[in-house]
């Protein structure tokens, strides 16, 4: 019960529960009900920036803690980090394109959920062979491939913004079509292994919970 398909099943359950939890947050409710305001979008971008900026950093740290038995996974994490480590600047230019000041998003403070999420990620990434983070990637990249485009379209429609103010959300959705195949490959590098399987699912659950907390705290 610990091969790739079993873990993917448990991860899919975690993701659907996560999605249900997000749907109930005040911010996403406002978005799906067509009541989103520019201030909501800006607050959202500020929190996303913190988390996206940290993303490539914890991934690099995780890569540096992957042992010699898993060099291919180490390469994959490093490549991921390289591809994504400047993505937060897209959020900055999106923010500026909405009429916001660059300085404001750069000096934005992490909310309670973002703090907790970031601390959790770096803590996990600092463990030897931090394979549990595959579960965190499943949640965060799942957002990119499943939710980002939907959110981006709604933001654009509701606020009447130009494309260049919603690039991060729209662009993420386009980018992640082969996401699940790559992810299956990464899982196969560390599975089957009961302890690792449990760790991946647990890390997904905690990450999802803290991510949702970050969204909840944007519009409490």
């Amino acid at each position, binding site marked *: 019960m610990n091969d790739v398909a*079993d873990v993917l099943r448990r991860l899919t*359950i975690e*993701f*659907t*529960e996560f*999605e249900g939890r997000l749907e109930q947050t005040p911010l996403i409710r406002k978005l*799906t009900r067509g009541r989103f305001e520019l201030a909501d979008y800006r607050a959202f971008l500020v929190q996303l920036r913190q988390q996206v900026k940290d993303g490539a950093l914890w991934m690099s740290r995780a890569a540096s803690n992957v042992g010699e038995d898993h060099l291919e996974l180490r390469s994959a994490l490093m490549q991921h980090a390289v591809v994504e480590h400047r993505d937060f600047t897209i959020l900055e230019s999106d923010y500026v394109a909405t009429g916001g000041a660059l300085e404001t998003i750069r000096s934005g403070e992490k909310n309670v959920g973002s703090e907790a999420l970031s601390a959790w990620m770096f803590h996990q990434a600092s463990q030897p062979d931090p394979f549990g983070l595959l579960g965190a990637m499943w949640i965060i990249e799942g957002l990119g491939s499943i939710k980002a485009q*939907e959110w981006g379209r709604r933001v654009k429609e509701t606020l009447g913004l130009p494309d260049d103010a919603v690039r991060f959300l729209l662009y993420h959705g386009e980018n992640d079509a082969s996401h699940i195949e790559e992810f299956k490959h990464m899982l196969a590098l560390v599975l089957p292994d009961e302890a690792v399987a449990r760790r991946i699912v647990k890390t997904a659950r905690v990450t999802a919970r803290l991510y949702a907390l970050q969204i909840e705290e944007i519009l409490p």
Partner: protein
Amino acid sequence: MLREGFITGAGAFLPGAPVSNDRMEEHLGRIQGRASLFGKKALRWNGVESRHYAMAPDGSVSHTNADMCARAVERALEQAGLGVGDLSMLAAATTQGDYIVPGHAAMVHAALGAGPLEIASMQSVCGASLMAAKAAWLSVRAGEHDVAAACAGEFSSRWFRPGFYEGTALVDDEGRLRPEADFLRFTLSDGAGAIVIEPRPRPGALKIRFIDIVSLASRFDPCMWAGSTIADRADATTAWSHAGPRAAHAAGAIALLQDFELLKKVIRAWVGVYLEKVEAGRIVPAEVDWALVHYSAKSLRAEIVSLLTDTAGMIPEEKWFSVLREKGNVGAASIWLMLEALLASGRIERGQKVLCVVPESGRALVGFMMLEAV
């Protein structure tokens, strides 16, 4: 001590002759006399090729919803070797009954003409079928009734006539109906189905192993609904009952509507619930011999299949059985139409397991019923 419950008969009723895709729009009528731009796409999505309507093009009605249910119950009783006089409990399901009040079960009972009965009305969407089945099954199990029937019927077409939409906010200046309404117009049709449940098996009976119904309504806004406008559907204080029927109709708040974007999320949630059942060992895909899945759109099936394959939750496609293509999507009645057809095909062998899956987009619900041939 609970007894067991067995499905000893199943019945189906479809009104009139089948109506093919090239005749359906003419049958229902064209909105402001114009062909729907969306209709062909909707038909490709839903995969339906033929259906039945209880309303003729001239507006005359061959059967009410309750009539169709009563006929299906009679047929199910006949299959079980019983008559209407043997029935003591009737649970009836529908999305929209003939009247707003009283409940559907009372209307079906009257149409059935049986003596005094215990009845239960279940109003939801497709999942109402399993709610009624569970009520009937549990009353048999509890020893309160020896012959219980669960039926489900839909008379969707009466809401699909052009006059119902024309002059409302759902039709734009160029005479185009909102896709939220048009999709359902090209998807749903009429009919009824029923099962009979008894505490003892007969040859060919199906033992009910479990009926699990899971609502996720607290997660999502309404996904398929009638009674509110598209924009205000999450705010029940603005619903039709507050605006009054005439204003509500003009605002487009009475017609049945479907949100496709939300539907995609709801589908993922259904898959999540199913995979939880697999994870918990409640459903073992490899042990299922027949999968009767009431899916509302063929186009969504491919997406679900790939996700289930990746997660070892897939039941091989050769084990799927459906009558959607030839009998249409009849909402709550569909699962009984499928079960009746599978039983009539004589293909179920003793010991085989039949899994019925009834997702309901209404406000995100999914039901599972596991049967075993005895």
